[in-house]
């Protein structure tokens, strides 16, 4: 499935925005889906890499991915230019459930986890709680604002927004919305998601979290990318679920916390 690259530009620091033409993928893509990219055709680095689908435009047939250059694959990816092609599978995985009519959607992002939840803004306005290490990692907040979301930021070093973790923003949000039904969406680093899951459970709140592990096949065949999920009634109370095909989005009730 070779897709033509339309744009591949730096948005901030090591963060890039890739746009490629994939009309069938764009037709079916929803927030939480991912595309599995074969970036390098050489035989020294063979595996595909999964990227959250940031946006999909049905009218133009374009898929947008926002990524951070962190290693070999993303370095090669960042060097591709419009007109190049990329082998793209997708949309893969289980996406987020669109917010019900009676809830306020709250997207809780850690770093470029914000990329994966953007298409939720298409359903209805909501709130983005954006967490990052520092201001240099706060991306996509303008896009969320333009899409009608209220944005609140927390950085670990206090260089933008409140100093602290993104979960620290939740108590005040709850206090400001008494009696309102909030539904939480989460995407970010594993420790952040675990903290979010515990907080939501403690507060009797509900949501869906995107949780993954290093992926290989991306279609559920290799069992490489499993994550622990609750399995009530089973011998141990948990099982390993494939984040690529049974996830990456899991209902809070399924999310296993130590």
């Amino acid at each position, binding site marked *: 499935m070779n897709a033509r690259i339309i744009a591949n530009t730096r948005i901030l620091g090591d963060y890039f925005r890739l746009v490629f033409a994939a009309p069938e993928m764009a037709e079916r893509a929803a927030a939480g889906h991912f595309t599995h990219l*074969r970036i390098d055709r050489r*035989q020294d*680095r*063979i*595996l595909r890499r999964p990227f959250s689908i940031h946006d999909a435009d049905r009218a133009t047939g374009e898929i947008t991915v926002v990524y951070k250059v962190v290693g070999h694959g993303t370095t090669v990816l960042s060097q591709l230019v419009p007109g190049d092609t990329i082998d793209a599978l997708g949309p893969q995985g289980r996406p987020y459930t669109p917010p019900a009519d009676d809830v306020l959607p709250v997207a809780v992002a850690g770093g470029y986890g914000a990329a994966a939840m953007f298409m939720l803004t298409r359903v209805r306005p909501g709130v983005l709680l954006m967490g990052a290490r520092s201001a240099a990692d706060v991306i996509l907040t303008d896009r969320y604002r333009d899409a009608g979301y209220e944005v609140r930021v927390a950085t670990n070093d206090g260089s933008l927004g409140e100093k602290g973790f993104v979960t620290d923003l939740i108590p005040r949000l709850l206090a400001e919305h008494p009696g309102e039904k909030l539904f939480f969406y989460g995407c970010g680093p594993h420790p952040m998601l675990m903290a979010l899951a515990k907080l939501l459970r403690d507060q009797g709140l509900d949501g869906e979290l995107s949780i993954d592990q*290093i992926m290989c*096949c991306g279609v559920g065949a290799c069992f*490489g990318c*499993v994550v622990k999920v609750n399995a009530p009634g089973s011998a141990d109370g948990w099982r390993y679920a494939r984040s690529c095909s049974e996830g990456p989005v899991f209902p809070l009730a399924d999310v296993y916390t130590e």
Partner: protein
Amino acid sequence: MADLTAKLGRIVLKNPVMTASGTFGYGREYHDIFDISRLGAVVVKGIRLTPSHGNPTPRVCEVAGGMLNAIGLQGPGVDKFLHGADYLPFLRTTGATVIVNIWGTGIEEYGEVAARLDAEAEGIAALEINISCPNVKAGGAAFGTDLKLAAEVVRTVRRSTRLPLITKLSPNVTHISEFARAAEAEGSDAVSLINTLGAMVIDIEKRRPVLANRCGGLSGPAVKPVAVKMVYETSRAVKIPVIGMGGISCGADAVEFLLAGAKAVAVGTANFVEPTISLEIIDFIDEYMERHGFKSIDELSGALEG
């Protein structure tokens, strides 16, 4: 079109390209992408008596020319495999030729799994005995690297089923052909090789192994020349057919194994890279046979000059 039929003793396949166990799930995962009945055979992920979690994560890691895995044989157990909607009952609806890979933590368990599958064998073409997974202590390397134990496993399974048997061999031994001979002597209908090579990767910043299991199995293009040599040697050491695998990523790779003496091949890691690669490999073998005047897989197998 050349005749692509692959005859592995009692096992007859429409073409010589099958999937390697553990790289193709239970078939269903790829059936959305292409019609899996076009494959020579679908070899499903290893089945034991009871469900098993497998290893903690990280379970996979990319390396130059391939990858390491230490999945640890996560699986549903034989009951769910026989009756769960996503497993054998689904495979029966596809018309695919199905080979079931089996394992156990003790010799008796291998026999019990084989007997359970034998009792409901509709749609099962053969069993592949996994004595070579490097990632579980019992049921893997323990049996596949000890000649006496390997023979005992094959003997036990042979007594438990009438189904054709393939014994999957470990490359982590000094002379793999000795294990092939032992499997042949105990009534295995074929041998398949190679399973992954024991391997390790270390994260130097964390000073920790990358895989949670510490060590894993190496697969992918990097292992192919090792596998070709082992297939070459083994096919000259036994009379039963050899199924060759290890790093096959394209049609030319598959032909190498056939020329080395394999009667069929299996595609593993390459499925993760290109889900439809096996179909391209089937087409390439057909085209190659036409171009070189081979009329059958039997003619092509072992047709190595010099």
